[in-house]
């Protein structure tokens, strides 16, 4: 294709698509942004009052982070797909008293406390057949996620949504969710949109479950981190009609939010890929307002917040995610802005002060001061170092995968199976 890519026609094609996008922006959303500009500038964009480099905290604390990686194509045996999933949990001590900030705990120590090897590697499989697929996935979820029973997994979501005392499933009887109570006893029936489980979706769900499982294990362990950072957003697929998560991971997220709150841990989900429209324009506004290389954040309010949600994402139902509070932030002028989501219940209890925007702002600044302080590692400046370390720990490189497939090939051979299952079907045809 290179001969095509290098032509003037291809360049024209790219230009026309860009123009098309610009036109869309101009036509549809620019007007919306204009409506939000003043509010963003005056009320939502906030400069962070950063710690000095040699800060010694009154009380050093622990920060934990979890990330996962994997391959959805580890191998395919007819219609059975095997996924390679890795997760890493790292725990760091702010350690400012000893002048060696964010000192990581050894993997051995984290493994010992969590009762799970760090980093962790797992092989999970599922079927392509629709009903069997859900059954098998549910089995995998149960295998991964540490729970006593399914009702205790689903209850936190409903407790957070309804905001009334819900101690047992039966308490949902008189609510809009009452008609679905029977669905909340088995993992498999929590998968209410099984028809959407493509290979890639199944892989994402397995990986997300593995990460949430690690978060849960950490939260129920003896380690007491002040922050727990997850990679990604707190987005949850909500069933359009039933209005509860269409996949178990949505319930798991609420379960870890609840556990974190009980433990006094601040749960945050950081995503580089923020999907916030006009984020680059907001960043430009921040630069103009605070100056270049200043560190800032911008609350992305919901309709329930004072002043309501922003117009720029009014037609995006997933912003803010259900029960989450997202912020756009930048801790380095060299990087594009990122997004961080907090558990809305925690946020309402700890950050938001009803009728007192100044106190709310102070709480936000204090929160982001900590987050900024943990994002100064020179290797990943502007990105939280615990997450960066978790990412490096769990990353499965191309070379790693290749060696894993060599081992798979050996095992297939020993098991009287065709070792070619370890390779892509394309390789049969030299493609």
């Amino acid at each position, binding site marked *: 294709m290179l001969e095509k890519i290098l032509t003037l026609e291809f360049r024209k094609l790219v230009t026309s698509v860009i123009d098309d996008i610009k036109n869309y922006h101009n036509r549809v959303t620019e007007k919306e942004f204009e409506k939000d500009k003043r509010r963003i500038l005056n009320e939502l964009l906030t400069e962070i009052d950063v710690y000095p*480099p040699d800060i010694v905290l009154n009380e050093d604390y622990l920060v934990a982070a979890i990330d996962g990686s994997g391959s959805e194509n580890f191998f395919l045996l007819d219609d059975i797909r095997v996924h390679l999933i890795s997760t890493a949990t790292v725990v*760091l001590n702010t350690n400012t008293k000893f002048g060696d900030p964010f000192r990581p705990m050894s993997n051995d120590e984290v493994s010992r406390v969590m009762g799970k090897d760090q980093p962790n590697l797992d092989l999970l499989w599922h079927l392509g057949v629709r009903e069997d697929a859900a059954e098998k996935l549910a089995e995998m979820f149960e295998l991964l996620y540490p729970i006593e029973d399914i009702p205790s997994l689903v209850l936190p979501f409903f407790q957070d949504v309804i905001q009334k005392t819900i101690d047992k499933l039966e308490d949902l009887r008189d609510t809009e969710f009452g008609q679905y109570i029977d669905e909340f006893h088995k993992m498999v029936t929590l998968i209410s949109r099984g028809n959407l489980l493509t290979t890639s979706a199944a892989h994402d769900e397995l990986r997300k479950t593995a990460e949430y499982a690690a978060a849960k294990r950490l939260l129920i362990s003896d380690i007491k981190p002040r922050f727990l950072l997850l990679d990604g957003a707190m987005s949850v697929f909500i069933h359009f009609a039933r209005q509860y998560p269409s996949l178990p991971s949505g319930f798991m997220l609420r379960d870890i939010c609840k556990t974190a709150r009980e433990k006094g841990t601040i749960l945050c989900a950081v995503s580089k890929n923020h999907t916030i429209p006009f984020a680059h324009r907001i960043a430009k506004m921040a630069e103009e307002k605070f100056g270049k290389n200043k560190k800032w954040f911008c609350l992305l309010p919901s309709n329930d917040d004072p002043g309501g949600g922003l117009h720029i994402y009014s037609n995006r139902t997933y912003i803010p995610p259900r029960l989450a509070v997202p912020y756009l932030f930048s801790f*380095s002028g060299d990087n594009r802005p990122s997004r961080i989501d907090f558990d809305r219940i925690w946020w309402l209890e700890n950050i938001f002060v009803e009728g007192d925007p100044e106190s709310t702002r102070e709480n936000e600044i204090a929160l982001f001061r900590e987050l900024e302080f943990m994002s*100064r590692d*020179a*290797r990943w*400046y502007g990105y939280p170092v615990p997450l960066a370390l978790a990412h490096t720990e769990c990353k499965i490189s191309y070379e790693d995968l290749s060696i894993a497939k060599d081992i798979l090939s050996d095992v297939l051979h020993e098991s009287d199976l065709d070792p070619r299952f370890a390779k892509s079907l394309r390789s049969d045809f030299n493609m």
Partner: protein
Amino acid sequence: MLNKEKLGSLFGRIGMGDQSSLWIMGSNEDICVGEIFAIYSKRDNHERVFFYRVLKLHNYLRRVDDLSQVAGTLMVEGDAYLSGIDRNKLIELGGKMLGYAELVENEKGERIWRFKSPRRIPEHLAFVYRPVKGESDVIYCDMLHSQIGGEIYIGDFQIGEDTLDVPVNIESKFLPMHVGIFGSTGAGKSNLMMVLIKSMIDNNLKVIRGQSTSNLVSAFCIDPHDEFATGVDTYGIHDIVKEMDENTRKELFGEFYYLTSHLSATPREIKRYAKEIRILWKEIIPQDLYSIMSFTPQMSAFIEAMYHAHGEDWIEAIIQLDENDDSVDRSNLGSMRAVKRRLKFLENSSIFVDSGQSILPEIYFAMETGKILVVNTSLMSDREQFLLTTIVTRTISDLRRAAKSSGLIRDFEAQCRVRLPISFYNKIERKAKAFYGKGGTTNEHEVRDPRDLPIVMITVEEAPSILNPTLMEGQSVFKDISRQGRKFNMGLLVVSQQVSVLDNVILSQMNTEINLRLGNEREIQACIDNASVNISGFEDEFRVMNRGEALLTASYRDMPIPVRIPLFDDVFKRNRSNYKRMASSRKRDKHII
């Protein structure tokens, strides 16, 4: 199975590479270029220890692709830190494989180390050990025995800026295959020469004490700065002489060890063991002059004609030649004048004289009886020094050549009378026959093989002046010695600041090189190109060498050996007591006169 702890402290693991060069990932230790590491491998159940020399160092941060970018961020972002970085700080070493030692069984069933060239590669991710002084010395001695053994001590095995207690030696039998010492001013050549002289004395001491069966080593050591006898710092060769009891001194040095052009200028304590250099014009032959200066064919023809006509009085004849004399061929007046001009230095020389007592026979006797002579040339002109070296070399070479090509003493004598100035031969005849005759000196006695005689080492100082391509094109005596010296047990000890200007014949015949710090890139490259073993890639190392550090290369060894030459004072103090007592002498062959 080898106790790996003896190899040193565990440092790292090997990464990428091949059988000649490898990358090692090691812990964040204070490593320097030139350090030697041992790599333990047991591939296919073959237990081997590979030797590796560091040529390059990289700081490596695990999981960081662009270290410069991190450094830049630390500079620009004043509040940046590095979290938990210590465990990720590693040192990546680039270097050369020097070879490997393998435990094998010899014919007696004993397990011994055998050293081999780097024809293999250690197993994947093999462990790398850093030798520890005081702990690893013995095993390194054992493993490297074939690479560092011998009678002539040079220095200690160097690992980076430090040394192991592992002495590096040359086997005396390889001395006649010529030794080159290359180093710029201040690189430590004089100290090395003194250490070498001491080692040759020590070798001879062991031989006369019956502690060694190797040959005696004689040496004609040119001392251009008159520092060998009294020393560069505190001690010199004279202190060795002083330490000895009378018998030992006589056996090792005879009546003298110090030669000088001006005896009167010699310190009193040395004067006892000194002689004045006087060489008669009669003892010089045309080839001696051809070896040290260039002559046109017409000039050579004139010299040959005069030599033919006047025999050993040829120099006197030329000097006294009056161009107005009727007998002079006037068509060749230009050549005659040019030759006379060239010989002018002999007229003005204090050491080359037309009459008197020559020292040449005594030098010859000393060389044939395993003596060391220190020759102070500090008061001589370069030309005098070169001619002296040439005459001594040619004289001994001609005698040994005559011996080598003779079956009986009769043949030997006939050859000597053709090769040597007759007046000189007459002076040494009796002793020469004693040296070379097997069991007697009559005409019918067989002649000994020169390889059973003492090894004679002739130092050629400022070597480029006489070992350059121009002079070596002609009838240089050094060309013959370089090619055939080993047959007569004669070797050259070539000392030079430059390698690039030496003649290729000399360089190609040189089988041992002691390469000290060199002056410039051209000399470094020439040194690498001419080394007897492959040391390509060692350029950086030459650039960081300190005074007294050297790389020993030898054609008969597989591994280039880094050596630290100790100060003469230190080695002298270390074993000065060796010279004090005379152990029971082994009965040596006596020459029958």
